């Protein structure tokens, strides 16, 4: 019975893939060409994907932030309270020295990628992931240390709230939610594209704090088996 269902599902999947194959290749009419033509003058960011993520589809980014928040909260709920002590061995000299070297490097790279998201490939999500790893590496090197969960929750909450507040400020001005504000500046300079760098900074801090909290929670677990 189960084998028959799997076979039927594979048949349906093969039909779906064949249908997608028939429509491969550039489409004649889609909104991407319009956005490519109009984004540099309307939004002013040198990276068009950033202007799509934050300006044209800003609501999608807001929903994605809430999905991440739900996942991180659910991880905290399922794992429960942190155990008092950990039974890990000492991590060794190489890992300790390497972690002391890596932490400032990763921090600088992460902050750079977050701040320059509207100029070069990068942005809040990539930089946030790098920041989370930057704050986790010292925990790997010294197994007894704990990440301060109160700071992580505070930063996460404030960053998420500031993203929504910046979006609401556009409502105050009479435009739609999350319209870019603050004027467009010179193309290609750091202070261009209005409120987009601020939004991406908020996203980067939120994602970084969330994922660092998840990693720290997971690392502090006692081995189950």
């Amino acid at each position, binding site marked *: 019975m189960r084998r028959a269902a799997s076979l039927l599902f594979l048949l349906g999947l093969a039909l779906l893939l064949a249908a997608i194959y028939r429509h491969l290749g550039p489409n004649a009419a889609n909104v991407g060409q319009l956005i490519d033509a109009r984004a540099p003058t309307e939004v002013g960011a040198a990276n068009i994907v950033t202007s799509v993520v934050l300006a044209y589809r800003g609501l999608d980014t807001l929903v994605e932030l809430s999905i991440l928040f739900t996942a991180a909260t659910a991880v905290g709920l399922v794992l429960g309270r942190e155990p008092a002590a950990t039974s890990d061995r000492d991590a060794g000299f190489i890992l300790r020295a390497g972690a002391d070297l890596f932490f400032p490097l990763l921090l600088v790279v992460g902050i750079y990628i977050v701040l320059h998201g509207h100029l070069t490939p990068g942005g809040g999500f990539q930089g946030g992931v790098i920041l989370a790893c930057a704050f986790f590496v010292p925990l790997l090197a010294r197994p007894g240390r704990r990440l301060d969960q109160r700071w992580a929750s505070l930063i996460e909450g404030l960053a998420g709230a500031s993203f929504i507040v910046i979006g609401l400020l556009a409502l105050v001005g009479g435009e739609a939610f999350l319209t870019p504000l603050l004027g467009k500046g010179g193309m290609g300079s750091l202070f261009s594209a209005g409120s987009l760098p601020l939004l991406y900074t908020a996203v980067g801090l939120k994602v970084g704090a969330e994922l660092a909290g998840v990693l720290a929670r997971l690392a502090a677990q006692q081995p*189950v088996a």
Partner: protein
Amino acid sequence: MSWVASIIVIVMLAAAVAVLLLKDFLSALAALAVVSLALSVLFVILRAPDVAMTEAAVGAGLGSLLFALAIRRMGLARGHKPEDRP
């Protein structure tokens, strides 16, 4: 440049099959990281540098870290415990 892409695709699919067939879980995790890295190179070939950076940071970095922590906490990384047959 489709022959470069073909080689990377072959490496990626071989590593994906290896994820399912390798007995040791840490080796399967390494194969999954190879799939993520090959995928990020393919994203660069597809002219999507933002997505390539995200896939490299998330797939090969954070995702593998999450899996490794979970494998260690499940006790599947000590010695070489044989897993149940598929």
